[in-house]
């Protein structure tokens, strides 16, 4: 007589490895449920910007911060990010995932220019003001505070062309090195934004005259349209990795940044769209700022350009154009995997991008 508790069937037995895999999957699903419940029921404000810093200068909304470091190199580094669009805490997002933390740990005396969040009272601020008034002042402050005779400038995204204009028009400012990370230079190769902002279809004057400033929601809509599947991918990846606490922490910080858009001052937007996107004046040598012509050939300091292979905001070809335009003899270009943001945030950036930037700057600082 068979044992009462032994089931004898003709069904094939399930492989124990498969059972173990399903148990692991079950654990992950429990983890997903736990983190999902926490995110919905008890959403925590992610803490960003972990590197200690000190505000050393302010001009209207703009701030200049110096980050604590064991200074190993004499030449200070002024970091110029984009104006408007997003907040600069992406550069110092989380411990272990921060570009600023990397650079200060490498021993660079690091200064961040935070352009700030502009209000309607700043609608008259032009790109010219930024290049001819704010940037020279910030550079002078960096030199004053650091006690150095020269400085390096690192421009990211829109900060790239702004820095290029500044260096080209201010030969009296002792810029020792210039790094352009994902900064668009040749706007004839700028991709979708270039097509959408074509003067035949986009009237920048009408926009600015009607709205005054370009609202953050509109900036957001523009960027979302550029990558319509982004939210779907983000949601899918979040669900897939929701069991992983460190992924969730990183996601929350990045998601906070990715949804915090910043308005453009009206006149700045007008000049940026018309003279850069629509007329491509900088690379053609037809741009004038503060009464001076902007000639990229006047940039003679060592130049390093970093492009990203899948950058849809500033495609690699558009960024690389700086190499041929400058008058420097010491110049280098590197094209890295990933997109616009993956140069500056995420695990890929800390492996592929940041060490290259610090390694290029170190012997020249």
């Amino acid at each position: 007589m068979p044992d009462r508790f032994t089931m004898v069937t003709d069904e094939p037995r399930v492989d124990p490895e498969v059972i173990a895999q399903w148990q692991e999957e079950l654990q992950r699903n429990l983890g997903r449920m736990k983190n999902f419940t926490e995110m919905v029921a008890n959403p925590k404000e992610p803490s960003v910007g972990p590197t200690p810093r000190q505000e050393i200068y302010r001009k209207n909304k703009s701030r200049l911060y110096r980050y604590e470091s064991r200074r190993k190199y004499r030449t200070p580094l002024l970091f110029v990010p984009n104006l408007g669009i997003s907040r600069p805490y992406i550069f110092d997002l989380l411990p272990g995932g921060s570009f600023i933390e990397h650079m200060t740990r490498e021993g660079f005396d690091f200064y961040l220019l935070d352009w700030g969040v502009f209000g309607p009272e700043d609608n008259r601020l032009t790109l010219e003001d930024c290049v001819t008034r704010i940037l020279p002042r910030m550079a002078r402050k960096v030199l004053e505070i650091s006690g150095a005779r020269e400085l390096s400038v690192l421009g990211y995204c829109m900060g790239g062309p702004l820095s290029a204009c500044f260096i080209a028009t201010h030969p009296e400012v002792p810029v020792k090195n210039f790094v352009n990370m994902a900064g668009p230079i040749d706007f004839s190769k700028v991709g979708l934004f270039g097509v959408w902002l074509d003067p035949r279809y986009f009237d920048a004057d009408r926009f600015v005259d009607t709205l005054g400033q370009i609202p953050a929601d509109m900036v957001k809509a523009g960027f979302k349209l550029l990558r319509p599947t982004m939210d779907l991918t983000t949601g899918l990846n979040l669900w897939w990795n929701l069991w992983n606490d460190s992924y969730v922490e990183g996601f929350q910080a990045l998601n906070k940044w990715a949804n915090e858009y910043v308005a453009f001052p009206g006149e700045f937007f007008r000049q940026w769209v018309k003279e850069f996107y629509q007329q491509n004046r900088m690379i053609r040598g037809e741009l004038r700022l503060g009464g001076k012509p902007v000639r990229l050939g006047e940039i003679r300091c060592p130049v390093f350009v970093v492009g990203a292979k899948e950058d849809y905001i500033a495609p690699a070809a558009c960024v690389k154009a700086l190499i041929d335009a400058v008058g420097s003899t010491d110049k280098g270009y590197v094209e890295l995997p990933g997109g616009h943001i993956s140069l500056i945030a995420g695990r890929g950036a800390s492996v592929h991008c940041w060490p290259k930037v610090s390694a290029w700057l170190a012997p020249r600082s």
Partner: protein
Amino acid sequence: MADNSSTQALFDLWKKQIEEGTQAWARLVGQIGQSGQAQPPDPLQFWRPFMDQGMAAWSKLLTQGPPTPELLTQWKQFLDQWIAAWQKVLEQAMGTEAFAQVLGKYLDQWLSLQAPIKKVAEESTEATLQALGVPSRTQVVGIARQVVDLEDRIEGLEDRLGALMARMDDLFKSLADHEAAAARRAADRVAQ
């Protein structure tokens, strides 16, 4: 573990979907370009065949053999590739002049609608705040602008003061050099 032929069948299906999707988008963009008018695509009609095919394929796969979590990984990879392919198709569609034209027209219409609404809203808010004796937005912005201008002027003065100080330093330095030279000459004369 999922059957290899089933996975291959899935990827073949996916390729077919992409090809059909590309053709559908090309047709859609072509229509917009030809007519010059924004014809909103019908998403339900567009997506239904893909969803039906996908569901049929997955229900077939799930009935074959004991499923493992690897099936989920394959499902995720399938979705990632599917989204990436769609992104590429959308990019191609959005990179056309026809799309830029449609977008431009939409924004123009939005501005035409926005301008009078904004004007009316601003005027009524202004009137209400004035009636309540509260500073209006225009007044607050005006004051903020004055502060910004004042700051610029102070900075201008700082710059000029800095330049003057630098010149004065130079002057003091050359004066000190002159005095030292005069003292040396006087000392030479005494020595002679």
